[in-house]
């Protein structure tokens, strides 16, 4: 399963079986086991990459940053060792957001962040066909534009939640803020985004119908973060 996902980028990486498996992987990796390290890379690199790419809007920078983050993690694992206590993901993504912040600051000093041309066509690449793909691409581009116009704090929560796929509890740990505050900020950010898209005449109801029906079901079942 993991071998196939490594060859096919469209398949999401499988999650570790449980905390014991993650702990074992981390222990093996920290002792220099290359196989374990590659499994960890398979598990987490896409999420780090997505987070970086969403913020930096540049393929090459996102790749460099992902590599840099995992080099840092490897270095820490090798020198200090690591005992999994449910903190690996928050730690990994804290390293990632700090690195992204450094990049953004250095780029702001040098000039505005330009959008990568390749990114503009990304939305149409997977799982889209025919006329619908153009619509999806337009919506995605509108969404990226809207993300630029909401505040940094709101954007960070949205990106950590969706691009990094973290729970609100983990985001609260990373940002050191109360979970209630983050929930409110996330809700507000989504309403802002929706308002921006609606005012731009972008219809999102048809596009995300399948996903939203799933989400609404889970929401009605009362699942909390």
């Amino acid at each position, binding site marked *: 399963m993991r071998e196939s996902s*490594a060859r*096919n*980028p469209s398949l999401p990486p499988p*999650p*570790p079986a*449980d*905390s014991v498996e993650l702990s074992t992987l981390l222990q093996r990796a*920290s002792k*220099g086991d290359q196989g374990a*390290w*590659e499994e960890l*890379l398979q598990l987490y690199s*896409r*999420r780090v*990459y*997505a987070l970086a*790419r*969403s913020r930096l809007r540049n*393929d090459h920078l996102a*790749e460099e940053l992902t*590599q840099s983050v*995992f*080099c840092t*993690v*490897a*270095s820490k*694992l*090798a020198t200090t060792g690591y005992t*999994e206590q*449910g903190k*690996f*993901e928050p730690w990994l993504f804290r390293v990632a957001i700090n690195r992204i912040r450094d990049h953004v600051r250095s780029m702001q000093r040098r000039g505005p962040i330009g959008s990568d041309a390749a990114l503009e066509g*990304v*939305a149409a*690449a*997977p799982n889209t066909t025919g006329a619908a793909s153009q619509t*999806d691409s337009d919506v*995605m581009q509108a969404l990226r534009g809207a993300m630029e116009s909401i505040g940094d704090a709101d954007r960070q929560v949205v990106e950590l*939640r*969706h691009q990094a*796929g*973290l*729970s609100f509890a983990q985001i609260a740990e990373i940002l050191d803020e109360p979970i209630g505050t983050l*929930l409110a900020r996330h*809700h507000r950010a*989504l*309403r802002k*985004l*929706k308002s921006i898209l609606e005012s731009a005449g972008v219809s*999102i*109801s048809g596009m995300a119908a*399948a*996903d*939203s029906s799933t*989400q609404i079901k*889970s*929401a009605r079942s*009362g*699942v909390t*973060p």
Partner: protein
Amino acid sequence: MSLSKHESSSEFQPLPHDLADVADMDALLQSEARVQRSSMPADLVTRIAAVSSPMLQQAGEPVLKLHEASSEETLGSRRQERARASGSAWKHRRLAWAGLAMAACAAIAVLVMPSAKPRRASDLASNIDPVAEMDLLIAAVDAMDQHATLPALGIDDSSIPEALSDEDRSPLVEIGGSL
């Protein structure tokens, strides 16, 4: 960290019940995240592994070596130890020579300085006899008045070439006349 947490965090988190009004937005953002994740180059994992694995390989080295490197025997302390072992005798010898040289310089300075030191203005003033100075000045003025020649002033003019005129030989007279 539970099994469900891992599963949910690696895919997407369920929407909290109070976000139902923005469920479509949530779903759209998830679609966007899928696009971002799937856009990662397939070989990036291999590239990252190639760069980062050597860092982890260091961890596989013998524990004793790591322990030695990370214990109290740091790089700085090893340097000091080496300096102590190989350079202490040489250091002492250098210090001894430096001390001797300084002592020699001090002795020479004590011997030489009194005669070599520059005289102060008060010392120079004390060597001038003010009475003799005044006498010379008075004589010069008198000579000017009397159109005296150099010998009259007590100045030997034999060294002055004959070709020179009298005016040249009696500059004070000329000076006096012009005055």
